[in-house]
């Protein structure tokens, strides 16, 4: 039951710097821990988090990898490792210039993939 929470303003004035915060539900199992029976718990990590921006509203942005879509611009990316706590939280800043959609993608071990998108109205 992966779920994520994105906290950011829905609207901004052109040139404003807005704070974007993203929290995702994930166990971030390191692969180094053992169960109470002594068996090694298999690694289960989010490996990469990206946030990209696609300009314009109302257009289709439903591709699974927003980063490779023409016209999309990478805003923030992170590579995650075993030392990152469960339910990773990221906060970063973004300069709003035109209206568009921010696309958040988390990918990781065991085919983990979660995607969220939030529209931003710039006036």
């Amino acid at each position, binding site marked *: 039951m992966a*779920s994520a929470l994105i*906290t950011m303003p829905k609207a901004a004035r052109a040139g404003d710097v807005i704070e974007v915060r993203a*929290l*995702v539900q994930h*166990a971030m199992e390191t692969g180094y821990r053992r169960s109470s029976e002594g068996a090694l718990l298999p690694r289960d990590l989010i490996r990469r988090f990206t946030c990209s921006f696609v300009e314009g509203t109302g257009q289709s942005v439903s591709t699974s990898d927003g980063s490779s879509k023409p016209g999309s611009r990478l805003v923030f990316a992170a590579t995650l490792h075993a030392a990152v706590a469960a*339910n990773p939280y990221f906060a970063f800043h973004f300069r709003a210039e035109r209206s568009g959609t921010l696309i958040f993608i988390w990918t990781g071990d065991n085919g983990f993939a979660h995607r969220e998108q939030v529209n931003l109205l710039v006036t």
Partner: protein
Amino acid sequence: MRLALAIAALVIALTSAAEPRKSGIDYASAATQTLQKDDAQNPGMLWVKDGQARWTERTGAANKACADCHGEIAKMRGVAVRYPAMAAPSAATASATSTQRVINLAQQINQCRVERQQASAWPAENASLLGLEAALAFESRTLPIAPPVQPLLAAAQARGEALYRQRIGQMDLSCRDCHDGLAGKRLGGNIIPQGHPTGYPIYRLEWQAVGSLQRRLRGCMTAVRAEPYPYGSSELLDLEAYLMKRAAGMPLETPGVRP
């Protein structure tokens, strides 16, 4: 004169034992407090969000959602601060008075699930159950804990208080020994809180997940090297009932964050 002073000192010592009650969050580090205060960072909000989604999800043989009977989840404000309490009259027990009993919020959710939605009950600590519980308690955030006055509940609270005072385990400690006697002092790196269940279900950094009050109680029992009571046992329920009475009037913080 000396006697009077001694008596005065004794009175002060006794009243300071009843110092203002403190929530566990007051003992937590500034970083943990920030994590709880800020809904954008509080990982417990992920469970709340999941529970809010379940509220409107039709399920079971009856194909009913919680919202189909109860309406918007916002209407459930004030519900979570009452539990544990006597079970709401259900379809199956309306006529049979002999089945009246005290239940906690999780058991109430499962009762609805089985009888109204005709779905299977969730096991203890199931993520969906914790989510729904967290979403309901979230609606009562900031409301004072208010156990109702019910004869059956009073009996459970009394049994719970006896358990609270009962020394258990190889360490031979009662809940009271630490959470009344040594609250504010340290156990290893952690400060011992007064043990008020103000934020349940809580996100515990040690668990890296949300868990119930029963999970926490079982954790304490293992720590004093006693055999923990099983999930859903009447002993854990009685303890829950007593702890909520002990914390009556304190504001609910769900989803709480603790170290």
